[in-house]
């Protein structure tokens, strides 16, 4: 019986404070969660960054192709970021 009590003591040690509505280390855990949140980099904007937009200038054969084409060129050739 003593052996059983020794083995089951961790469970008792954890349960008794909970029954008394005490949550040991709760504030530390919440503080650690908040600290990790502030250490994270701010999320990048999902909108395109205008400064990094690269516009391809149409020249030469592409200029002719655009003039003669029935349909517009693929979108990837007009604006890239």
């Amino acid at each position, binding site marked *: 019986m003593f052996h059983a009590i020794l083995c089951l*003591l961790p469970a008792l040690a*954890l349960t008794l404070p909970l029954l008394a509505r005490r949550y040991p280390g709760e504030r530390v855990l919440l503080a650690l969660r908040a600290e990790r949140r502030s250490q994270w980099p701010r999320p990048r904007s999902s909108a395109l960054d205008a400064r990094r937009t690269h516009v391809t200038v149409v020249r030469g054969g592409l200029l002719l192709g655009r003039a003669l084409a029935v349909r517009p060129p693929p979108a990837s050739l007009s604006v890239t970021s």
Partner: protein
Amino acid sequence: MRVPRRSPLPSLGGLVMAGLLFPATADAHGIVGKADLPIPVWLFSWAAAIVLVVSFVALSTLWRSPQLQEQHRSRVLRVPGALQWLAGALGVALFALVLYSGFAGAQVPPANFSVTFIYVIFWVGLPVLSVLAGDVFRALSPWRTCARALWWIGRRLAPGRLAQAPLRYPPWLGMWPAVAGLVGFAWLELVYVNREQPSLLAALSLGYFVVMVVGMLLFGVESWSEQADGFGVYFNLLSRLSALVRDEQGYLCVRRPLSGLPDLPIGRGTVVLICTAIGTTTFDGFSNGGIWRNNEPSLENLFADLGLHLVPAQELAYSLGLVLCILLILAVYRLGILGIHSVSARYDADTLTRAFAHTLVPIVFAYVLAHYFSLLLWQGQALGYLISDPLGNGSDIFGTSGAQIDYNVISYAAIWYVQVTALVAGHVGGLALAHDRALVLYRDPLEAVRSQYWMLAVMVAFTSFGLWLLSSVGT
């Protein structure tokens, strides 16, 4: 006079002599008494609790958004449909061998293929295989294979008439038939005096087969398999721990470990089924420990004084123990849920019971592995000679009938460490699942963290209890 209880497997003390003379079956449980451990057993319990507390802290601070609610499957390769039928044929062939050896073979349990196959390969080996490789029993199941074959034949003979099953599976029935099946098998394995009689096992197997096939023909293969087939439901439950799964299009997929559990359908009887799976293994260990061995005779005498004969009195005492162990597991889980409910009134206790039920499944496997690892490792070797002599009549089909079980393949201390590792890993898995679910249920971090204190207490309780059970076996 007390009727000596025939243990399903001979005690370890007689193994050495018996093993030399006759291939014997092995003790199923922890053998800490024989292990040379560097620290007392109760310190292992404290160490395991510390591991769980550290895991709880890590989960609370690092695991900030749900990661397991989606499976994130990646297709690996396509599994041909024919392979499923091949697996089914293998399952039917093995089942036929179990029946044949059970009815026609020697009625000596260690020498008969059916006994070792059912209690070791089927009941212990398949759970391990399910966790490693996914729901393999779905393909191997002999009754499911036969029912599907009969449906296929029926649709060919009467096209258009068998578009759906004749009857609708009653929703109110839920998984209660599966619970009954599991409890029935556990009772046979742990309580019934004649549990090792090969012909009885064969007869019961055949009866179960008939009930399953008839049920699948009446209510539909999938409806019946998913709710009423105790073994199918049990192995499917454990297969959700696996990182491997076969999708509806027949592709073998890899998914995040444990991610198969959050979408486990929780219907009527599901929570009881999960707790029953833990409770039966719990009783298996408890009934081999000092407290039960010292007190069971008193219970047996009580029933004998009430008018029962010795054998029924013993079986009633063991039946009571089995039921109490299942109820104990249910009670511990329910207490933990009531604790979570005390944190916030956002959800009622029944909703929380269903919401966190899947977190117990890793514990189911942890208990199975911890209690039966040595049995699988030792008695599983018996298949080497039993496959050559399934009837126990001296045949030597594959030339391996002279094989012996090597009990030195693993040390006693190594078995203990495997048991501890299995228990701790299973409960850490349960804690991770619970934390992931709490993040879904509670937006307020305070509520989420507090709710997990209670799950931590439940997990530590199950871990400590499991270690105590293993350490008390044979005392």
